[in-house]
């Protein structure tokens, strides 16, 4: 990969991803359809336990897609103060709790780090859709006097970043990335840039949720939602019967720090955010190749590793035959046929929009820690694909370096390399 191609990978500052302090993950917080909290999620994921079922957040009977991954047992009032409830969408409540858990996991309390040395960078795909739906209903059903003043920000893409920042007194550089499912990786990369520029701590990742009738209508327009009614077979990426994906809610937030800073305060370290790249697909009909393989090779270069150093790949796993083929070919082109284990535990949660890739990075870090690759439960690999897909239960393995892939609707490709410290 030439420096020229690296310079087109989406770093607004131009040039390569650059260098600076090694960026590590010191805490994680998870709200996932197959587990509320990282322990529940990881136990379920290792065991291949799914969180997909018929939608309960609204009545899906009149919709072509009726399954989703919903976060179980989440009662916002058990976790958040009363002042926050009238002003937050479901996704923001999940995000605030995930951020609280990530900070606890990292051993960071109020006052430990100066306000201006902490920032927040999250990914978003749709903002607070359910909140907005309720306020639109109030507007058209009762009149403008009935619309909440909090609608002014509760729907907004940046709202999770803003609310996490306010709740935790984080007044340093912050932002939001909107690139659909790729966003979770793009946000972590921006977090790494901020650590390299001198921030002490960045909360980063993504938590998303738009399982409401309006959000569902929007998601259906992609044409990629599975219409199956059996949770066991509705989302089968890389399978000959792949027919779209199941959507879900939730995601993960991670605490990023410099390795030196983390070691100095004696923090636990899950691993290093070692490499990143993002590419954009060419316009349809241009005849030029998809950008995913280039994202992979550029991320490997950025991490300073060779293909044979990657011990496991967490696939984007679109569940759409053409997109599965593009991903399988990209993996094979970089690593060779069946040379690296590939897995997609998101079959257990559904695709979580901007929360998906952040959760995959957490899963990858836990896999490195525990030496186990969680399975892509239920999938029978289409023999057309020359990849070593881990399907038949968790696979023990000595893992040091993992690659996480994510693609967003409309041409986004992102890749992240994480390494055990």
């Amino acid at each position, binding site marked *: 990969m030439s420096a020229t191609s690296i310079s087109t990978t989406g770093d607004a500052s131009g040039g390569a991803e650059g260098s600076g302090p090694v960026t590590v993950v010191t805490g994680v917080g998870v709200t996932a359809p197959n587990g509320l909290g990282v322990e529940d999620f990881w136990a379920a994921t290792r065991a291949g336990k799914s969180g997909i079922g018929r939608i309960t957040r609204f009545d899906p009977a009149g919709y072509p897609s009726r399954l989703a991954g919903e976060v179980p047992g989440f009662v916002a009032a058990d976790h958040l*103060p009363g*002042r926050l*409830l*009238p*002003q937050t969408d479901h996704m923001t409540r999940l995000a605030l709790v995930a951020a609280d858990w990530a900070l606890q996991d990292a051993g960071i309390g109020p006052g430990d780090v100066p306000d201006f040395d902490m920032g927040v960078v999250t990914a978003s795909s749709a903002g607070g859709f359910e909140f907005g739906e309720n306020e639109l209903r109030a507007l058209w059903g009762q009149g403008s006097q009935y619309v*909440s*003043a909090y609608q*002014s920000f509760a729907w907004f893409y940046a709202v999770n970043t803003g609310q996490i920042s306010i709740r935790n007194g984080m007044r340093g550089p912050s932002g939001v990335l909107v690139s659909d499912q790729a966003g979770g990786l793009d946000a972590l990369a921006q977090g790494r840039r901020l650590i390299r520029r001198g921030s002490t701590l960045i909360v980063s990742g993504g938590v998303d949720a738009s399982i409401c009738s309006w959000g569902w209508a929007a998601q259906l327009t992609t044409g990629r939602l599975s219409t199956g009614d059996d949770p066991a077979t509705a989302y089968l990426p890389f399978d000959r019967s792949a027919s779209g994906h199941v959507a879900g809610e939730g995601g993960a937030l991670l605490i990023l720090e410099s390795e030196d800073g983390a070691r100095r305060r004696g923090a636990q370290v899950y691993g290093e955010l070692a490499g990143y790249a993002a590419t954009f697909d060419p316009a349809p009909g241009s005849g030029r190749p998809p950008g995913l393989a280039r994202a992979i090779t550029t991320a490997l270069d950025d991490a300073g590793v060779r293909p044979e150093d990657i011990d496991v790949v967490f696939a984007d796993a679109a569940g759409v035959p053409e997109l599965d083929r593009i991903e399988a070919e990209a993996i094979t082109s970089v690593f060779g046929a069946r040379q690296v284990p590939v897995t997609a535990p998101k079959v257990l949660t559904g695709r979580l929009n901007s929360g998906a890739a952040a959760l995959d990075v957490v899963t990858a870090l836990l896999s490195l820690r525990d030496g186990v690759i969680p399975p892509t439960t239920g999938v029978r690999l289409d023999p057309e694909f020359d990849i070593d897909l881990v399907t038949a239960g968790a696979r023990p393995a000595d893992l040091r370096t993992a690659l996480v892939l994510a693609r967003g609707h409309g041409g986004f490709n992102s890749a992240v390399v994480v390494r055990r410290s």
Partner: protein
Amino acid sequence: MPAKEFTLDDLKRILLAGAGADESVDLDADISDTDFETLGYESLALLETSSRIEREFGVSLDEGALFDANTPRALIAVVNNHLLALESA
């Protein structure tokens, strides 16, 4: 006082419904002369509160007067003055 008076209990009920309550604040204590800011309500919370008062009591509150009313006692007086003006109109 207007026939349909706006009371401290009305205000507390509407504050709770529209903006919730800060855990460190006891709304049942004597809060009549405590700043809204001290009670944990920022400008957007007061905007939401005034909007709810307007639709429940059928008044249209003057924004300038609202802005100046920074305690429950002052806000209750503003609302009741509007209600009185409405009755005598």
